[in-house]
């Protein structure tokens, strides 16, 4: 590959970080959600659908509510609503998580497209730019802080991004040293032991799935509000599935999720950046890089990805 001299400029690196964050934050929220439910033993294949309804509701909220916060709230609400199906069908009734997940994704793709087309097909409105909250002093650091070309470098992000990073830290603490983390882990490792310890497996898993839905919805909303600035059919383009992979590669550890999400975000945003840098690489080649990277990683470290033993298995008290 020819490396043009522009690659090494400050503008380029600012864009790499900003672009990576912009594309990585939806992945981060969603993958944090998946990390929670995987820990609790629920494989959420419906993540793509939950992200999509979150994106649509986030767009609606931001459009009619004239506030990105209304949008985020809408995204969370829609994600929770979609995950209610999973709670009832998979956690309460013990139905096949993969089949229900596929159904949620299909229905999510269909319903958002139908609603968007019937409301906005002629107008296709765009959302306005969102506000950022530069961190005083730090925002003066070159590359990490200074806004160039209207991008959001690390220290000039919308508040929700900082909240998301904070959430990852909180989750890491919860997983390590709180009873919630212990209960979640037990629900994924050996649900009957959790039950015998007097904690409801169904409740633990239900809350985990609802939290996943909320985070996937929020991820979708951020994608629509900050990322694409509007909604389109299938706007998530498989990011829900990517989030599942990220959660698996990070072995469910929140800080690992943050790192992997950022890496994927950079890869996703790289095609545009390379064009800025004067390297003409087809967008498809760049787009498939993260996926090829995952396959390569899986081929090299096939045994590394860890999944809880009770993942995707329904829990029925008394059944062995």
């Amino acid at each position, binding site marked *: 590959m020819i490396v043009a001299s522009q690659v090494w400029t400050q503008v380029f690196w600012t864009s790499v970080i900003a672009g990576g964050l912009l594309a990585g934050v939806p992945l981060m929220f969603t993958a944090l959600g998946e990390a929670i439910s995987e820990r609790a033993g629920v494989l959420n294949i419906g993540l793509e659908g939950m992200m999509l309804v979150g994106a649509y509701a986030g767009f609606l909220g931001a459009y009619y509510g004239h506030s990105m916060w209304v949008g985020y709230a809408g995204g969370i609400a829609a994600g929770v609503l979609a995950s209610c199906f999973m709670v009832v069908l998979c956690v309460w009734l013990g139905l096949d998580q993969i089949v229900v997940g596929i159904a949620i994704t299909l229905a999510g793709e269909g319903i958002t497209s139908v609603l968007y087309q019937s409301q906005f097909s002629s107008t296709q409105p765009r959302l306005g730019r969102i506000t950022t909250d530069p961190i005083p002093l730090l925002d003066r650091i070159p590359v990490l802080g200074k806004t160039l070309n209207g991008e959001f470098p690390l220290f000039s992000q919308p508040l929700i991004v900082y909240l998301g990073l904070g959430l990852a830290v909180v989750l890491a603490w919860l997983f390590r040293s709180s009873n919630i983390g212990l209960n979640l882990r037990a629900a994924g490792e050996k649900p009957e032991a959790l039950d015998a310890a007097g904690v409801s497996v169904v409740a633990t898993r239900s809350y985990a799935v609802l939290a996943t839905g909320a985070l996937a919805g929020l991820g979708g909303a951020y994608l629509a509000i900050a990322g694409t600035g509007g909604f389109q059919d299938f706007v998530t383009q498989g990011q829900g599935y990517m989030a599942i992979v990220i959660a698996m590669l990070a072995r469910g550890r929140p800080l690992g999720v943050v790192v992997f999400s950022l890496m994927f975000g950079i890869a996703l945003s790289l095609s545009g950046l390379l064009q800025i840098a004067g390297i003409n690489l087809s967008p498809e080649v760049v787009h498939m890089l993260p996926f090829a990277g995952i396959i390569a990683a899986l081929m090299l470290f096939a045994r590394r990805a860890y999944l809880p033993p009770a993942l995707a298995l329904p829990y029925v008290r008394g059944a*062995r």
Partner: protein
Amino acid sequence: MNARNETEAPLVDLVGITKSFPGVLANDSVDLTLRRGEVHCLLGENGAGKSTLIGILSGLIRPDAGTILIEGAETRISSPRAALELGIGTVHQHSALIPALSVLENLMLGDNRKLRLDEAGARGRLAELAGQLGVDVDPDTTAADLSLGHQQQVEIVKALWRGSRVLILDEPTSMLTPQGVAELTKVLGRLKEQGQAVIFITHKLHEALSLADEISILRRGRVAGTIEREALQWRSQEELRAEIVRIMFGDEARAVADLAELQEELDRVEGKARGVAADADIVLELQHASAPEGTELGIEDVSLHLRQGEILGVAGVDGNGQRALAELIGGQRAATAGRVLLYGAPVTQISASGRQKLGLRYATDDRLGEGLVGRLSVGLNLFLKRVGERPFWRHGRIQRAVVDGRAAELVREFDVRTPSVTTRAATLSGGNIQKVLLARELSFGPKVVVFHKPTYGLDVKTTASVRDLIRKLADDGGAALVISTDLDELLEICDRIAVLSRGRLVGVVPNGPGAAEEVGEVMVGGAASAEAA
């Protein structure tokens, strides 16, 4: 210990507990009384209703009828949490510890009073309880790395964690070495001193007699009889045994082909060695064989031989490499070192189905998990190790008539109770499932058969007929390797008994008078030397 106050209400009183599952009346108006500082033994065969009763007490199962009185007050135990809050702690037969978590994490699980885990407090509580019980547990070990005996100690600590008054131990000795049983006995003594009521479930008579203050015998969901404290103290052992056997098996005992044999088994009388010529051909030999661990321990450098007409037992505590040994011989697990010889020819490189054809068979202990495919018919299950072979398949196409016809013959020959050969295998009872498995392994020219826990969980009658089948195989010129954790069983049917400990063969004992003690010594010695190493 004898300062029992007769006027005080009993700690737990079960009155008329009834529970039915589709097709089974698991508990039929069971009455049971528990007092402080007493070990109450529940004795009964598999399926007598012990597990259901425990499930009810520990909040996992809700009874259809009956009342539970705790200190005289009527109580409902609606969930495991409720049971714990009432002070009822349970140690289940299958480990309830989470292997991936540390001992401390396992103990803290379920304590949701504060968001932050109270690690310092938990360490203190563990030290306190460990001191009371006289056990030594490292709080930071991962549960998976503990020996079974230590796991059980952790489980007892866990059951007592939130201040229990009633401790339920479900078949606690089934996984323990003689040494482990001795330690458990000590722990039980300490618990009694502290005024705990203990329910001790077992199907072994001698354990009940040596540990219990009172014995209740369950049979077909009913309390068939009770041996009171006074009787246990004053009547002779022989008398008690005879009475318990009568209560346990009732009229059925007469139906069992050989009651004397049953008595023998229950009394742990050593079996008599059958004559095997010392110069009989060696049919199976392992030479310094090693196999990797799977979910359980692997084996290392195991050498043994088996002669024609011989029944060789493999004793040892569960999880000491039994599965690896069986799967290595069966061809399911590749050897990392050493050789397996069948009639002097190496078969190490031959696949499981190849060995099956040569007459080397493996009757697995995990009958439902890997022994058969529940949703396929009984008939097909009888041929699942011959898929694609003539005459049952021709040019890859199944010959239904041949399969069904031959299956019907096997069903008759092995007395499998099934409505038809097209019935789905999963609907059969445990005993009949084992018969299907044995029919498959003992047909079409069996020569050397590995039996893994062949009678585990079976009723008396089926147990007797399975042992007859093993003897018949040996008498007809075959040979059997019987892996079992039930030493009594090995003493009854084997010619020699090898002991497996920590994946190594630590000794071989010829069966005969005194064999039981000798095997016990080898087991303990083997464990001790392995720990020292």
